[in-house]
């Protein structure tokens, strides 16, 4: 999936000392673009659904407190991730990104979701036929 490829390229394999900051920055930029396109209410509803999926997939992480505060700031997310190791925090963001974009793709389509990711992260579209771009 090109969407997953884009996410991996942004948040996987980063140096551990700045991995979490970079992952949060990716989330911030995607959040801004999504709010701009769908409004705060649209973003919040998709965020809640993707949080629910993430909690199911990562039961060992303490994520219960997420989703109760104002999502327009990242304070809640930062506070939750502060209790994790950097690697765990990155995993939470990565899973959240995958779930969020999966829900988004179901609602507005893969192409528009990929477009949003490209705009948010200043990426050129991924060419699935180009092995140079593959991180698998």
């Amino acid at each position: 999936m090109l969407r997953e490829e884009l996410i991996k390229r942004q948040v996987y394999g980063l140096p551990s000392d700045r991995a979490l900051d970079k992952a949060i920055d990716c989330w911030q930029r995607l959040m801004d673009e999504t709010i701009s396109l769908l409004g705060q209410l649209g973003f919040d509803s998709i965020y809640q659904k993707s949080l629910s999926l993430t909690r199911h997939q990562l039961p060992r992480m303490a994520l219960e407190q997420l989703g109760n505060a104002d999502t327009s700031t990242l304070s809640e997310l930062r506070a939750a991730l502060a209790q994790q190791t950097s690697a765990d925090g990155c995993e939470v963001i990565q899973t959240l990104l995958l779930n969020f974009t999966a829900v988004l793709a179901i609602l507005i389509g893969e192409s528009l979701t990929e477009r949003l990711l490209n705009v948010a992260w200043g990426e050129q579209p991924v060419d699935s036929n180009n092995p140079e771009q593959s991180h698998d």
Partner: protein
Amino acid sequence: MTEKVSIRSLRTGVPGLDQLLGGGIPEFSLNILSGAPGSGKTTLAHQIMFGMATPENKALYISILGEPPVKMLRYQQQFTFFDPNKIQESIHYLNLSELILASDFDGALSRITEEVNRISPALVLVDSIRALLGLAERAHQDEADTIEFIQRLGIQLSSLQTTTLLIGEYRSTDDDSTSIFTVADGVIHLTQSLHRNSVVRKVQVVKMRGHAQVPGLHTFRIQNSGLEIFPRAIVLGNIWPGPPPEANANANANANIVRLSLGKSGIDDMLAGGLPAGYSLLVVGPSGSGKTILATEFLAEGVRSGENGVIAIFEKSPHQSRGNQILTPLIESGHIGTIESRALDLSLDEVLHDLTGTIKRLGAKRVVIDSLSGFELSLAPEFSEDFRSSLYRMVAQLTAMGVTILMTSELEDRYTDLRFSPFGSAFMADAIIVQRYVEISSEFKRVMSVIKVRGSPHEKSIRLYDIDHTGVHLGQLLTDYQGIMGGRPEWQPPSRTPSS
């Protein structure tokens, strides 16, 4: 020397709309796109936006408690005009639901201004203005405040050199509560009506300051590609391009008439040399009398003479019409264009739009409508109820293009009265050929006669004819019979000259 300001027209790219708007949307104008829920406003707004937006001329779509953006994007991308690559590059969205729900109108206006300044869009769309005004009323602001808000919005957006489209759920532009129509420079109103279980969609450009818009209601259809508008055919001037009826007496005038062969010399002879170019010929007869074969030969003869043609098939299925041995190779070779429809909710203008488009594309000179009975059935009840008027407009429009038309019409054999058209439409045909069955010697025989050729002499006899897979074959004149059109001719032996 002072120069008058020139208002540039921005082409929307929506098929048929720019023609109605008098060229396009006036630059920097404030327009309202209104209509009842489900009338196609949001789709038209998106189609205009995707058609006009470029990286140099961006568009900003502002959602104000209209359709939720997620749903809007979900549904709008079903249309082929929706290009995801334009999102956040040429097209930007702004959702103001939260501000509006908090009745923060000043905040909404400044947010719009801020975003317009940031993006510098050439086109701004606001969806929906009705929701905005409704909230304003509920917030106990009086109407003057809301109108003032619209005016301020209009002035600010014009000053920022943007063209604005306000989308609103208004069933009518006559509604007293909708004084925002007064403020707007342009109003485009969409309607849909249900008549005998058939839905007809119409668009009206109620006003467009600075432009000569096309008045009246025009039908449109929403398809995968979006809206397609069919501007109403307007009859201008004399619909008969041939010589006027009074020229009939002048035999010299006939010498100058260009005539088209119908593909059978005998039938051409009956028409005094062929059908005058630009005429409409009505071929009427009962089922199986050979009307379609005659029409097909008319087209085939045109192709032999280097004239392309178009056939509108309403009666037979595409499979049946493609089985026509004369027609099929001509269609496959691209000399004959086809308009095939078995829908039952067409508008005359839609049919005419397809016909004129195909005529222009092929440079066609000959057109066949097969048949008027099927054509009437294919029209939505609203149009078929006034079929004579619809037919009149169609014939007028086509003959004005200089094409020669052959129309077939099913007419059941009635031997007690002599009719030439089931629709009372014979008057608008320039020429009429009638086909009938008659009983001779306990056999059904086919006969035909030329009833009328406007402004031209023609044979008045009744001829036997037959049809087979190669076409129409004329037979002998029925000179020794009487009561032929009554269906039961009686043989009248020629009176013998007394021998001397």
